[in-house]
């Protein structure tokens, strides 16, 4: 009797575990299937055309792709130095009494839902940009900044974890040779934890590019490519969030599904690079 239960337990757990893989394959298949119409109609124009006009059945996704790239890029150049600073502070500088509480509060802030960051951005940050930088406040720049603040806690926490993998004995040897804290950081910690640190940045990049709610509030969903950062813009997730419930034709839906597929492929690629290339090697280094 128990031999049968044993088999049932083993096979059902295996079945469910394997179905995770099937689920992911299913997600890709469904998105691909629904994108076929758009792929057949728009072809490569989908990613090279700048005109997104659903009423004319014209779907050029370049502005959304451009917006995703630029807003994520802005977020990264703002967040990376801050995250490194916070991580250095947490792993090397903070007094023991502060290390714990500050570290935990950074981790808790990473748990706050992104919709809250978006709401804060809309009510408190948009007016600041409007009054002091220019434009209407709803802009690419605002989106980049809000995004950078949203990914900061996550990035700082994983960067700190990567730095903390450096064995104390290596650091102590460097200090014993008369190294300053900065010497130890740049010549011992960073070389040792390099792969982990870069991996965590790329992981944060993967998250940022798929982030929807933090930017939807402040980006404006305007399909245009503008070199003016204070102009409203759109990104792939922002377009999806705003237009999915409005789509009224088969081709419109299909174009949105192609955007979803594109986003999934991009973030899968970025996260895989982080995971397989950098973080795996980091693990071996430990």
């Amino acid at each position, binding site marked *: 009797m128990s031999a049968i239960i044993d088999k049932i337990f083993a096979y059902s757990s295996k079945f469910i575990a394997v179905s995770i893989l099937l689920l992911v394959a299913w997600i890709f298949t469904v998105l691909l299937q629904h994108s076929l119409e758009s792929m057949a109609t728009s072809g490569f124009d989908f990613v090279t055309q700048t005109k997104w006009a659903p009423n004319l059945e014209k779907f050029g996704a370049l502005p959304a792709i451009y917006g995703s790239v630029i807003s994520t890029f802005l977020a990264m150049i703002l967040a990376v130095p801050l995250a490194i600073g916070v991580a250095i502070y947490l792993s090397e500088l903070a007094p023991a009494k502060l290390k714990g509480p500050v570290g935990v509060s950074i981790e808790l802030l990473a748990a706050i839902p992104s919709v809250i960051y978006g709401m804060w951005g809309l009510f408190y940050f948009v007016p600041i940009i409007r009054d002091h930088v220019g434009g209407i406040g709803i802009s690419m720049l605002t989106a980049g900044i809000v995004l950078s603040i949203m990914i900061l806690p996550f990035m700082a926490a994983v960067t700190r974890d990567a730095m903390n993998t450096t064995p104390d004995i290596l650091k102590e040897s460097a200090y014993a040779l008369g190294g300053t804290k900065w010497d130890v950081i740049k010549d011992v910690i960073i070389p040792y934890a390099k792969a982990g640190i870069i991996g965590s940045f790329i992981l944060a990049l993967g998250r940022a590019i798929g982030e929807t*709610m933090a930017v939807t509030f402040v980006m404006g969903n305007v399909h245009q490519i503008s070199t003016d950062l204070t102009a409203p813009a759109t990104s792939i997730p922002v377009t999806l969030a705003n237009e999915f419930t409005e789509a009224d034709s088969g081709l419109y839906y299909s174009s949105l599904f192609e955007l979803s597929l594109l986003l999934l492929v991009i973030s899968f690629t970025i996260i895989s690079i982080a995971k397989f290339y950098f973080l795996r090697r980091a693990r071996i280094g430990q």
Partner: protein
Amino acid sequence: MTHTSKRILMNKIIMTLSTLSAIIGMGFLFWILGVLVINGVDALSWNIFSQEGAPPGYENSGLKHALIGQLFLIGIATLVGVPLGILAGTYLSEYGQKSALAETIRDISDIMMSAPSIVIGAFVYAIIVAPMGHFSGWAGSIALTIIMLPIILRTTDDMLNLVPSTLREAAFALGAPKYKVIIQVVYRGAKAGILTGVLLGVARVAGETAPLLFTSFNDNFLNTNMNEPMASLTVTMYNYATSPYEDWQKLGWAAAFILSMFILALNVLGRLFLLKKKGK
């Protein structure tokens, strides 16, 4: 300037810069928390919990519909996602171990954890909302379940791995079949860890908005029928905050406050369980 004094100066500059960036980073984050608490507490009232949504300008409006809708959406996602996730995690740790299949499942789950949640919404829209012809609470719950699964699976896997193999061997030596060893020995040893994983998983999906936008959609009134569109705190917050009406925006802040406190409480609770375990 000598080489040494240059190095000391450089050290001072970098240390000041990183302290400064820690202050700037923490400043922004506490600004957000402060705004959330001030606006949230200001907007809280008994009406929030006892009244449903109302057109802008009505005095008696609240979030009862969104609170109950949110409980339904998360509740069902938890009921489905937790057992499935734990069972799959059990396979990885107890059966699959280091096999290629188990490693692949681990890698894919890790990637899924960081994949954009709005894409899951699009997927569920295609397989459930479009064939059914309307938005529904079920669709929302399923989207949340898909997001929750990899989180529960990976934490269960990690936590079961921490149970010493000698415990398993002792139970096997007594003649217990594998499923009994897993349920009565391994699960017991990893109880606190699994519970932490569940709490963090629930906290994670509770804050999801994007996958609900076009699955469970929204409803301004109380609805407990999972076959109908259903309100959630997050989507309600989004709709109210982007509306031009001040009383709706206020309700949005109340929703933001309640949701964040709920999520922070789950996170703190999860950490406490882990700490308690470490303390033993």
